[in-house]
């Protein structure tokens, strides 16, 4: 059934998907500043430049804080929603599901723009608070969906057994359900963190003077400079992501949740 040209199409697909990464990788070690191809010579100067550019270092810390805090809050608030959706049957469940999947249906740039206008209306809001709210809102769909999937895999009778043996609902949840959901929670965490860490459209409008996320500061760097520093930074980010994703995949089987 599988012919030779189908294998060729597989090679083309992966060439197209991964080729750009190979090119970024090569360019980040090249000595010529104008990004001519093929790169000449070998240098680590561009990597040094990444660490000497305070714009990147500052925004990296902001992205890290933002990713961690918005992922944690969206999980803590999303988990009860997932629990209600999977363990109870109620009239408004369809509406609840729609509301919590809405943030991925609306274009990110529009979300950021609408929030910015709204926050201006509300008055003085710290830039970081605005970014945090924006990221948390767009992470709900991921948290609720991944945690729901993980809860559906767990037999509700296990929990009922705990309750019939005398635990109350909360205790049953904390001592029986939660430990069984570790993989799902960790997968939701990794997925949420990466989504926040890489987001540009929502952050674009919500960023302010001095408070910018890493991808947005990469984008604005590109407006002024055209040299391999971005390639070096991208190489570092790819390595960071591969390590994170491979660990998550090996330990948790991340791809079944994406």
């Amino acid at each position, binding site marked *: *059934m*599988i012919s030779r040209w*189908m*294998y060729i*199409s*597989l090679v*083309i*697909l*992966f060439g*197209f*998907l*991964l080729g*750009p*990464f190979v*090119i*970024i990788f090569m360019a980040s070690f090249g000595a010529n500043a104008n*990004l*001519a*191809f*093929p790169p000449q010579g070998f240098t680590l100067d561009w990597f040094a430049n990444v660490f000497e550019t305070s714009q990147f270092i500052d925004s990296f810390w902001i992205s890290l804080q933002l990713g961690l805090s918005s992922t944690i809050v969206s999980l803590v*608030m999303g988990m009860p*929603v997932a629990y*209600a959706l999977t363990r*109870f049957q*109620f009239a408004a469940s369809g509406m609840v599901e729609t*509301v919590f999947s*809405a*943030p991925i*249906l*609306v*274009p990110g*740039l*529009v*979300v950021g*723009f*609408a*929030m910015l*206008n709204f926050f201006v209306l509300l008055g003085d809001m710290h830039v970081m608070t605005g970014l945090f709210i*924006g990221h*948390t*809102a767009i992470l*709900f769909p991921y948290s609720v969906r991944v945690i729901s999937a993980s809860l559906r895999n767990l037999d*509700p009778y296990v929990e009922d057994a705990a309750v019939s043996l005398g635990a109350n609902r909360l205790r049953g949840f904390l001592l029986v359900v939660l430990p069984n959901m570790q993989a799902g929670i960790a997968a939701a965490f990794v997925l949420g963190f*990466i989504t926040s*860490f890489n987001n*540009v*459209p929502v952050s*674009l409008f919500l960023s302010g003077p001095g408070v910018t996320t*890493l991808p947005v500061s990469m*984008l604005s760097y*590109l407006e002024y400079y*055209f040299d391999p520093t971005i*390639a070096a930074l991208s190489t570092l*980010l*790819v390595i960071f992501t591969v390590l*994170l*994703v*491979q660990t998550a995949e090996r330990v948790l089987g*991340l791809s079944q949740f*994406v």
Partner: protein
Amino acid sequence: MIRRPNQTRTVILLVAPAFVFVLVFFVLPLIFLLSQSVLPEDGGFTLRGYVDFFQSRVSRVVYLRTLKLGLIVTGICVLMSYPAAFVLARMPVRRRSFLMSLVILPLMTNAVARTFAWLIILGRRGMINQTLLSLDLVENPLRFIFTETAIVLGLAQLFLPLMVLPLVSAMENIPNDVLEAARSLGANRLTTFVRIVVPLSSDGLVLGATLVFTGSVTAFVTPAILGGSRLLLMSTLLRQKAVILFDQHAAAVVAVVMILTTLAVNLLLRVLRVQQV
């Protein structure tokens, strides 16, 4: 199941915090946006903004270009992933899961990094121009950046995984027996693929097409880097109106048109999917 006491109260308690958050910080801003698009700062309710949008040649060109490029990108993604997804779906599990993690990898890297590669490939001194020059095929470097081709390539690379993933999971569910039956009844490979595999994986196709198309028509980073202000799409037009021209009313109109477009596509393709079942 054991009887759940106070069900309604429990559900409300569980859902309320996140629900209020999404309502206040997500739904309200969108309602405010909608009101901004029909209530200019100097006057009452009017649909003038929308009329202006569709009457202005510039914004009409931008809107149609955005839809056109979205369709082209979706088409390219379908053609590139269909046969390859079939090979992936028929692979032994171990090899498949390794290759699938490579498919997911680009999704996990930020769009700026991924789009940057196209500057190196398509730039004045980029890979393609250097190759053409050294083969004496052209005398002067060609301009690829700030063209529709560049945006299409960038977007296709960005969203290809979103087509491959649903296709592979739809094709995994096609039993081998069905394919063997078709072959033994005399269908050749191509007929089997077109008449059996394609209809049985159409769910994945529709889902993938929805994701790729809506992603392409709303993406910001790729058109910003590869199109710039010379070749605007809806997203870059929105940013231009809001940040450079400071016309919040016109920007709100662009934003609402973007929302309505993605909603329409989602609804249309959802109807398609329901009809097939």
